[in-house]
Protein backbone atom coordinates (compact mmCIF):
# COMPACT_ATOMS: atom_id res chain seq x y z
CA UNK A 1 0.00 0.00 0.00
CA UNK A 2 1.47 3.40 -0.93
CA UNK A 3 1.55 6.25 1.57
CA UNK A 4 -1.15 8.31 -0.20
CA UNK A 5 -3.62 5.42 -0.07
CA UNK A 6 -2.91 5.03 3.66
CA UNK A 7 -3.19 8.81 4.13
CA UNK A 8 -6.59 8.86 2.43
CA UNK A 9 -7.89 5.87 4.40
CA UNK A 10 -6.87 7.49 7.68
CA UNK A 11 -8.39 10.82 6.60
CA UNK A 12 -11.65 9.15 5.59
CA UNK A 13 -12.11 6.95 8.65
CA UNK A 14 -10.96 9.49 11.26
CA UNK A 15 -13.16 12.02 9.48
CA UNK A 16 -16.24 9.84 9.77
CA UNK A 17 -15.53 9.23 13.45
CA UNK A 18 -15.17 12.96 14.15
CA UNK A 19 -18.46 14.02 12.51
CA UNK A 20 -20.52 13.84 15.71
CA UNK A 21 -18.07 15.69 17.94
CA UNK A 22 -17.33 18.29 15.27
CA UNK A 23 -21.02 19.15 14.99
CA UNK A 24 -21.22 19.43 18.80
CA UNK A 25 -18.16 21.67 19.04
CA UNK A 26 -19.28 23.84 16.11
CA UNK A 27 -22.79 24.49 17.40
CA UNK A 28 -21.57 25.02 20.95
CA UNK A 29 -18.70 27.18 19.70
CA UNK A 30 -21.07 29.59 17.96
CA UNK A 31 -23.34 29.63 21.01
CA UNK A 32 -20.63 30.43 23.58
CA UNK A 33 -18.94 32.89 21.22
CA UNK A 34 -21.94 35.14 21.75
CA UNK A 35 -22.20 34.88 25.56
CA UNK A 36 -22.14 38.68 25.75
CA UNK A 37 -25.41 38.77 23.77
CA UNK A 38 -27.34 35.85 25.22
CA UNK A 39 -27.27 33.06 27.78
CA UNK A 40 -26.23 29.91 25.88
CA UNK A 41 -27.29 27.54 28.67
CA UNK A 42 -30.55 28.89 30.11
CA UNK A 43 -33.64 30.71 28.91
CA UNK A 44 -34.60 33.10 31.72
CA UNK A 45 -37.93 34.90 31.75
CA UNK A 46 -39.45 37.22 34.35
CA UNK A 47 -43.16 37.29 35.09
CA UNK A 48 -44.87 39.76 37.44
CA UNK A 49 -47.44 38.08 39.65
CA UNK A 50 -49.63 38.84 42.63
CA UNK A 51 -50.46 36.78 45.67
CA UNK A 52 -51.56 37.36 49.27
CA UNK A 53 -49.26 39.10 51.76
CA UNK A 54 -47.55 36.83 54.29
CA UNK A 55 -47.46 37.38 58.02
CA UNK A 56 -44.02 37.31 59.72
CA UNK A 57 -45.17 34.45 61.92
CA UNK A 58 -45.70 32.25 58.85
CA UNK A 59 -42.20 32.71 57.45
CA UNK A 60 -40.63 29.90 59.50
CA UNK A 61 -42.76 27.21 57.89
CA UNK A 62 -41.82 25.57 54.59
CA UNK A 63 -45.54 24.93 53.98
CA UNK A 64 -46.02 28.70 53.61
CA UNK A 65 -43.70 28.75 50.61
CA UNK A 66 -45.21 25.61 49.11
CA UNK A 67 -48.61 27.32 49.39
CA UNK A 68 -47.28 30.41 47.57
CA UNK A 69 -46.00 28.24 44.72
CA UNK A 70 -49.39 26.49 44.48
CA UNK A 71 -51.33 29.76 44.69
CA UNK A 72 -49.29 31.21 41.82
CA UNK A 73 -50.01 28.07 39.74
CA UNK A 74 -46.32 27.39 39.24
CA UNK A 75 -45.56 23.83 38.32
CA UNK A 76 -42.33 23.42 40.27
CA UNK A 77 -40.97 22.09 43.57
CA UNK A 78 -39.87 24.09 46.59
CA UNK A 79 -36.13 23.79 47.25
CA UNK A 80 -34.97 26.56 49.58
CA UNK A 81 -35.67 30.07 50.84
CA UNK A 82 -33.66 33.23 51.61
CA UNK A 83 -34.59 36.62 53.06
CA UNK A 84 -32.56 39.31 51.27
CA UNK A 85 -34.29 42.05 53.30
CA UNK A 86 -37.03 42.46 55.96
CA UNK A 87 -39.61 43.09 53.19
CA UNK A 88 -38.66 40.37 50.77
CA UNK A 89 -38.34 36.64 50.60
CA UNK A 90 -36.75 34.65 47.76
CA UNK A 91 -38.22 31.19 47.22
CA UNK A 92 -35.98 28.83 45.27
CA UNK A 93 -37.47 26.04 43.17
CA UNK A 94 -35.97 23.43 40.87
CA UNK A 95 -36.41 25.56 37.74
CA UNK A 96 -36.51 29.14 38.97
CA UNK A 97 -37.29 31.37 41.90
CA UNK A 98 -39.88 33.83 43.20
CA UNK A 99 -38.93 37.16 44.73
CA UNK A 100 -41.87 38.04 46.93
CA UNK A 101 -42.70 41.22 48.83
CA UNK A 102 -44.29 39.79 51.97
CA UNK A 103 -46.23 42.98 52.77
CA UNK A 104 -47.82 43.64 49.36
CA UNK A 105 -47.86 40.13 47.87
CA UNK A 106 -46.16 41.40 44.70
CA UNK A 107 -44.02 38.70 43.22
CA UNK A 108 -41.56 38.35 40.35
CA UNK A 109 -41.29 34.80 39.06
CA UNK A 110 -37.91 34.14 37.46
CA UNK A 111 -38.40 31.06 35.31
CA UNK A 112 -35.16 29.32 34.40
CA UNK A 113 -35.33 26.74 31.65
CA UNK A 114 -32.33 24.78 30.48
CA UNK A 115 -31.61 24.93 26.74
CA UNK A 116 -31.75 21.17 26.39
CA UNK A 117 -29.16 19.61 24.09
CA UNK A 118 -27.35 22.94 23.61
CA UNK A 119 -26.51 23.06 27.33
CA UNK A 120 -25.17 19.50 27.18
CA UNK A 121 -23.09 20.42 24.10
CA UNK A 122 -21.64 23.43 25.96
CA UNK A 123 -20.98 21.19 28.96
CA UNK A 124 -18.71 18.99 26.84
CA UNK A 125 -17.18 21.78 24.77
CA UNK A 126 -16.12 23.75 27.87
CA UNK A 127 -14.77 20.61 29.56
CA UNK A 128 -17.08 20.85 32.58
CA UNK A 129 -16.90 17.08 33.30
CA UNK A 130 -13.07 17.25 33.64
CA UNK A 131 -11.47 13.89 34.63
CA UNK A 132 -11.68 11.34 31.77
CA UNK A 133 -13.45 13.77 29.42
CA UNK A 134 -10.28 15.92 29.37
CA UNK A 135 -8.44 12.99 27.77
CA UNK A 136 -11.28 12.34 25.34
CA UNK A 137 -11.29 15.98 24.28
CA UNK A 138 -7.50 15.92 23.89
CA UNK A 139 -7.85 12.82 21.69
CA UNK A 140 -10.45 14.63 19.56
CA UNK A 141 -8.08 17.61 19.21
CA UNK A 142 -5.35 15.20 18.09
CA UNK A 143 -7.78 13.67 15.59
CA UNK A 144 -8.55 17.13 14.17
CA UNK A 145 -4.82 17.79 13.82
CA UNK A 146 -4.48 14.47 12.00
CA UNK A 147 -7.37 15.44 9.70
CA UNK A 148 -5.73 18.78 8.94
CA UNK A 149 -2.38 17.19 8.10
CA UNK A 150 -3.75 14.24 6.08
CA UNK A 151 -6.23 16.55 4.34
CA UNK A 152 -3.36 18.45 2.71
CA UNK A 153 -2.23 15.29 0.88
CA UNK A 154 -5.55 13.72 -0.19
CA UNK A 155 -5.41 15.08 -3.75
CA UNK A 156 -2.65 15.26 -6.35
CA UNK A 157 -1.82 17.65 -9.16
CA UNK A 158 -3.50 21.05 -9.78
CA UNK A 159 -6.05 20.57 -7.00
CA UNK A 160 -3.45 19.21 -4.55
CA UNK A 161 -1.09 20.95 -2.16
CA UNK A 162 1.36 21.80 -4.96
CA UNK A 163 -1.44 23.51 -6.91
CA UNK A 164 -4.30 25.55 -5.44
CA UNK A 165 -3.77 23.88 -2.07
CA UNK A 166 -0.73 25.96 -1.15
CA UNK A 167 -2.59 29.23 -1.78
CA UNK A 168 -5.61 28.28 0.26
CA UNK A 169 -3.44 26.95 3.12
CA UNK A 170 -1.44 30.21 3.06
CA UNK A 171 -4.63 32.29 3.15
CA UNK A 172 -5.95 30.21 6.05
CA UNK A 173 -2.75 30.82 8.04
CA UNK A 174 -2.62 34.55 7.29
CA UNK A 175 -6.30 35.05 8.22
CA UNK A 176 -5.89 34.59 12.02
CA UNK A 177 -2.50 36.39 12.00
CA UNK A 178 -4.17 39.51 10.58
CA UNK A 179 -6.69 39.46 13.45
CA UNK A 180 -3.92 38.98 16.02
CA UNK A 181 -2.08 42.05 14.72
CA UNK A 182 -5.30 44.03 14.45
CA UNK A 183 -6.61 43.34 17.95
CA UNK A 184 -3.65 42.45 20.15
Amino acid at each position, binding site marked *: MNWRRLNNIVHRDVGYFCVGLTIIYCISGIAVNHTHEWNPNFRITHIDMQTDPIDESELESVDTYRAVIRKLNIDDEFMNV*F*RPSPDKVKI*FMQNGNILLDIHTGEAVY*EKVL*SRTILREMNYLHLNKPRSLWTWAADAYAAALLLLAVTGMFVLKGKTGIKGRGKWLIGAGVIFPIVFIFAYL
Partner: protein
Amino acid sequence: MNRKRSFFCIAAVLALSLIMSASLFAQDEKKAGAELTIKEVTQITDILDAPEKYVGINVLIKGTVVDMCVKRGGWMDLAGDKPFTKFKVDGRPTKVLFPLDSTGKTALVEGTIVQVIQSVEEQKELLKHNAEIHGEEVDLSVIKGPKKIYQVNALGAVIKQK
Protein backbone atom coordinates in the same frame (compact mmCIF):
# COMPACT_ATOMS: atom_id res chain seq x y z
CA MET B 1 -13.80 -11.56 9.84
CA ASN B 2 -13.71 -7.80 8.96
CA ARG B 3 -17.36 -7.39 9.96
CA LYS B 4 -16.67 -9.06 13.33
CA ARG B 5 -13.67 -6.78 13.91
CA SER B 6 -15.71 -3.66 13.01
CA PHE B 7 -18.50 -4.74 15.35
CA PHE B 8 -15.98 -5.34 18.15
CA CYS B 9 -14.40 -1.88 17.62
CA ILE B 10 -17.78 -0.10 17.69
CA ALA B 11 -18.87 -2.07 20.79
CA ALA B 12 -15.57 -1.21 22.53
CA VAL B 13 -15.98 2.52 21.79
CA LEU B 14 -19.57 2.53 23.06
CA ALA B 15 -18.62 0.62 26.21
CA LEU B 16 -15.74 3.00 26.89
CA SER B 17 -18.04 5.99 26.38
CA LEU B 18 -20.58 4.59 28.83
CA ILE B 19 -17.91 3.90 31.46
CA MET B 20 -16.45 7.38 31.05
CA SER B 21 -19.85 9.03 31.28
CA ALA B 22 -21.04 6.96 34.27
CA SER B 23 -19.77 9.61 36.66
CA LEU B 24 -22.16 12.16 35.10
CA PHE B 25 -25.31 10.28 36.07
CA ALA B 26 -27.18 10.86 39.34
CA GLN B 27 -24.54 12.87 41.19
CA ASP B 28 -25.23 13.80 44.84
CA GLU B 29 -22.86 16.69 44.60
CA LYS B 30 -20.98 18.67 41.99
CA LYS B 31 -17.46 19.95 42.46
CA ALA B 32 -15.56 22.93 41.18
CA GLY B 33 -11.87 23.74 41.49
CA ALA B 34 -9.56 21.96 43.92
CA GLU B 35 -10.56 19.38 46.53
CA LEU B 36 -11.60 20.85 49.88
CA THR B 37 -8.92 20.53 52.55
CA ILE B 38 -10.33 22.50 55.51
CA LYS B 39 -12.71 20.54 57.73
CA GLU B 40 -14.11 23.24 60.02
CA VAL B 41 -16.72 25.68 58.68
CA THR B 42 -16.32 29.38 59.52
CA GLN B 43 -19.70 31.11 59.93
CA ILE B 44 -20.32 33.82 57.36
CA THR B 45 -21.65 36.19 60.01
CA ASP B 46 -18.42 35.77 62.04
CA ILE B 47 -16.53 36.97 58.96
CA LEU B 48 -18.98 39.83 58.35
CA ASP B 49 -18.69 40.96 61.99
CA ALA B 50 -14.89 41.42 61.75
CA PRO B 51 -13.78 40.93 58.15
CA GLU B 52 -10.34 42.58 58.57
CA LYS B 53 -9.35 39.75 60.93
CA TYR B 54 -9.85 37.20 58.15
CA VAL B 55 -8.11 38.95 55.24
CA GLY B 56 -5.50 36.64 53.72
CA ILE B 57 -6.79 33.63 55.63
CA ASN B 58 -8.12 30.46 53.97
CA VAL B 59 -11.56 29.51 55.24
CA LEU B 60 -14.34 27.03 54.52
CA ILE B 61 -17.79 28.63 54.38
CA LYS B 62 -21.20 27.10 53.89
CA GLY B 63 -24.47 28.55 52.75
CA THR B 64 -27.35 28.51 50.28
CA VAL B 65 -26.46 29.88 46.86
CA VAL B 66 -28.84 32.84 46.57
CA ASP B 67 -27.44 34.38 43.41
CA MET B 68 -24.82 33.57 40.82
CA CYS B 69 -23.55 34.39 37.38
CA VAL B 70 -25.69 32.05 35.29
CA LYS B 71 -23.79 32.71 32.06
CA ARG B 72 -20.38 31.41 33.02
CA GLY B 73 -20.57 30.56 36.73
CA GLY B 74 -17.80 32.96 37.74
CA TRP B 75 -19.29 34.11 41.06
CA MET B 76 -21.91 33.22 43.67
CA ASP B 77 -23.54 34.84 46.69
CA LEU B 78 -23.95 32.56 49.70
CA ALA B 79 -26.61 33.26 52.34
CA GLY B 80 -25.24 33.90 55.81
CA ASP B 81 -26.41 32.03 58.88
CA LYS B 82 -28.30 35.15 60.06
CA PRO B 83 -31.18 36.71 58.07
CA PHE B 84 -30.49 39.39 55.43
CA THR B 85 -26.79 38.51 55.18
CA LYS B 86 -24.88 37.13 52.24
CA PHE B 87 -21.27 36.82 51.17
CA LYS B 88 -19.69 36.95 47.75
CA VAL B 89 -17.65 34.05 46.42
CA ASP B 90 -15.56 34.91 43.38
CA GLY B 91 -14.10 32.19 41.18
CA ARG B 92 -12.74 34.49 38.46
CA PRO B 93 -9.37 35.39 40.07
CA THR B 94 -8.66 31.70 40.70
CA LYS B 95 -10.20 30.39 37.44
CA VAL B 96 -12.86 28.38 39.28
CA LEU B 97 -16.23 28.13 37.53
CA PHE B 98 -19.25 27.01 39.53
CA PRO B 99 -21.98 24.69 38.15
CA LEU B 100 -24.61 26.88 36.49
CA ASP B 101 -27.53 25.17 38.24
CA SER B 102 -26.25 25.95 41.77
CA THR B 103 -28.85 28.60 42.69
CA GLY B 104 -30.95 27.51 45.67
CA LYS B 105 -28.56 24.70 46.61
CA THR B 106 -26.20 24.38 49.55
CA ALA B 107 -22.55 25.08 48.80
CA LEU B 108 -19.31 24.52 50.68
CA VAL B 109 -16.58 26.83 49.45
CA GLU B 110 -12.94 26.93 50.44
CA GLY B 111 -10.97 30.03 49.59
CA THR B 112 -9.06 33.08 50.71
CA ILE B 113 -10.75 36.12 52.23
CA VAL B 114 -9.72 39.26 50.35
CA GLN B 115 -10.53 42.92 50.59
CA VAL B 116 -11.53 44.54 47.32
CA ILE B 117 -12.02 48.23 46.61
CA GLN B 118 -14.76 48.51 44.00
CA SER B 119 -14.58 51.69 41.94
CA VAL B 120 -17.73 53.57 40.96
CA GLU B 121 -17.42 52.19 37.41
CA GLU B 122 -17.07 48.62 38.66
CA GLN B 123 -20.14 49.03 40.87
CA LYS B 124 -22.12 50.40 37.90
CA GLU B 125 -21.08 47.45 35.74
CA LEU B 126 -22.04 44.99 38.46
CA LEU B 127 -25.45 46.59 39.07
CA LYS B 128 -26.19 46.64 35.33
CA HIS B 129 -25.07 43.01 34.98
CA ASN B 130 -27.28 41.88 37.88
CA ALA B 131 -30.23 43.90 36.61
CA GLU B 132 -29.87 42.31 33.18
CA ILE B 133 -29.79 38.80 34.66
CA HIS B 134 -32.85 39.36 36.85
CA GLY B 135 -34.82 41.60 34.50
CA GLU B 136 -34.81 44.48 37.00
CA GLU B 137 -34.46 48.24 36.68
CA VAL B 138 -30.99 49.55 37.42
CA ASP B 139 -30.79 51.90 40.40
CA LEU B 140 -27.43 53.66 40.21
CA SER B 141 -28.33 56.11 42.99
CA VAL B 142 -27.21 53.55 45.57
CA ILE B 143 -23.59 54.11 44.47
CA LYS B 144 -22.01 56.67 46.82
CA GLY B 145 -18.37 56.30 45.83
CA PRO B 146 -15.65 53.64 45.90
CA LYS B 147 -16.72 50.75 48.13
CA LYS B 148 -14.66 48.43 50.27
CA ILE B 149 -16.01 44.88 50.16
CA TYR B 150 -14.85 41.52 51.40
CA GLN B 151 -15.19 38.31 49.48
CA VAL B 152 -13.82 34.80 49.19
CA ASN B 153 -11.61 34.04 46.22
CA ALA B 154 -12.60 30.42 45.75
CA LEU B 155 -10.07 27.62 45.54
CA GLY B 156 -12.63 24.82 45.51
CA ALA B 157 -16.32 24.21 46.04
CA VAL B 158 -18.81 21.41 46.54
CA ILE B 159 -22.47 22.02 45.62
CA LYS B 160 -24.94 19.60 47.20
CA GLN B 161 -27.56 18.49 44.68
CA LYS B 162 -30.17 17.41 47.24
